């Protein structure tokens, strides 16, 4: 039981130190498709994304590594997700497109800051790695897993969902077009079925 608790604590990548990038081999997700994070990365390159703001999440760990390794992208680790909403608004005011990478549990942190996007019609592209749904073991993830989409829509954002690896890239592509060409806040929810169910017992 103690082992289970320990691994649960270390396994939650949102709370891992920002200075160290998550090790893609260290996460305990199962059924991870090797390709969909790379497909997202290529879509971000095609959309001319220059600033990447993120709160670390295991589901985004490979994408975060790819973004950090790209000299054309400035990747910024946040202390809380709403910082990224504000930062990317400033980025767009200065001519840079950005993307926010977060976990569903961070959606609630963003709500008031999304008034920037709704009132000023400033674009936001957000990619949300879902927890608290398909096969979730941690009940504390359930509330935001359940309410992330409704919360985003209530705050004026448009929401696309990808529940199969093959659907991820085209959702990101369409979201980027809606965000940057129609100046709207758009979130793509990447379902837990795509990311994989997290296991904490080794």
């Amino acid at each position, binding site marked *: 039981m103690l082992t289970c608790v320990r691994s649960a604590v270390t396994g939650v990548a949102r709370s891992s130190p920002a200075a160290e990038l998550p090790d893609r081999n260290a996460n305990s997700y199962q059924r991870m498709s090797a390709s969909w994070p790379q497909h997202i990365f290529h879509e971000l390159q095609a959309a001319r994304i220059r600033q990447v703001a993120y709160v670390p999440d295991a589901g985004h760990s490979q994408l975060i590594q790819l973004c950090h390794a790209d000299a054309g992208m400035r990747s910024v680790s946040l202390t809380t997700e709403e910082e990224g909403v*504000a930062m990317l608004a400033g980025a767009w*005011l200065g001519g840079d497109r950005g993307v926010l990478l977060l976990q569903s549990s961070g959606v609630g942190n963003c709500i008031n800051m999304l008034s*920037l996007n709704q009132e000023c019609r400033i674009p936001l592209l957000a990619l949300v790695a879902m927890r608290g749904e398909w096969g979730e073991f941690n009940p504390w993830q359930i509330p935001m897993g359940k309410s992330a989409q409704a919360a985003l829509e209530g705050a004026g954002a448009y929401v696309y969902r990808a529940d199969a690896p093959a659907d991820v890239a085209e959702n990101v592509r369409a979201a980027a077009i809606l965000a940057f060409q129609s100046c709207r806040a758009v979130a793509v929810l990447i379902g837990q079925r795509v990311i994989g169910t997290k296991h904490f017992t080794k």
Partner: protein
Amino acid sequence: MSPAPSKLLNRRAATARILRDRGDALVVTGLGNSTFDVAAAGDTPLNFYLWGAMGGAAMVGLGLALAQPQRRVLVFTGDGEMMMGLGSLATVSVEKPDNLAIIVLDNEHYAETGMQPGHTGRGVDLVGIALAAGFADAVTIRSEQELEARAPKLLAARGPLFTVIKVATDPTPTALPPRDGPYLRSRFREAVLGVDAHR
């Protein structure tokens, strides 16, 4: 509680002094009096006023500073707005944008909402927090002489800079800039990006 107003700087005069020589510097304001202070110093498309989004001013400044590394970016905000975004001091410190200066007009109160006492008048030291977060240059300004010495640095010294200006709670004349979001963002982007603003 607070020192006598006569001993404290006037927020409008301090803001106007800093912006007197701004040139083409870009300015982001936190909601409330900081927005009004910057507007009173002279409305321009190069000002982006927040009328909400409390806690976001420093991070809007960071994203802008990273996007426009050749331009100076100044953030003017209040102590309450800064308190709501304390984590952003850590994020800005890690990113070290050398063209960003954050200026907190600190009256130690929530003046907009009924003059409730804020944290900074009750022992919380924003400059101490900024220094602990890793800012190499963070100071508190209390006098005209200190302001005169600091003002040119805010426009030219290597950032990120963090500056708290202790100001009075004296009433200020109404100075409301435009608040229509699409207007503010479009005129700002046109002024900064020219025709690229519409691509």
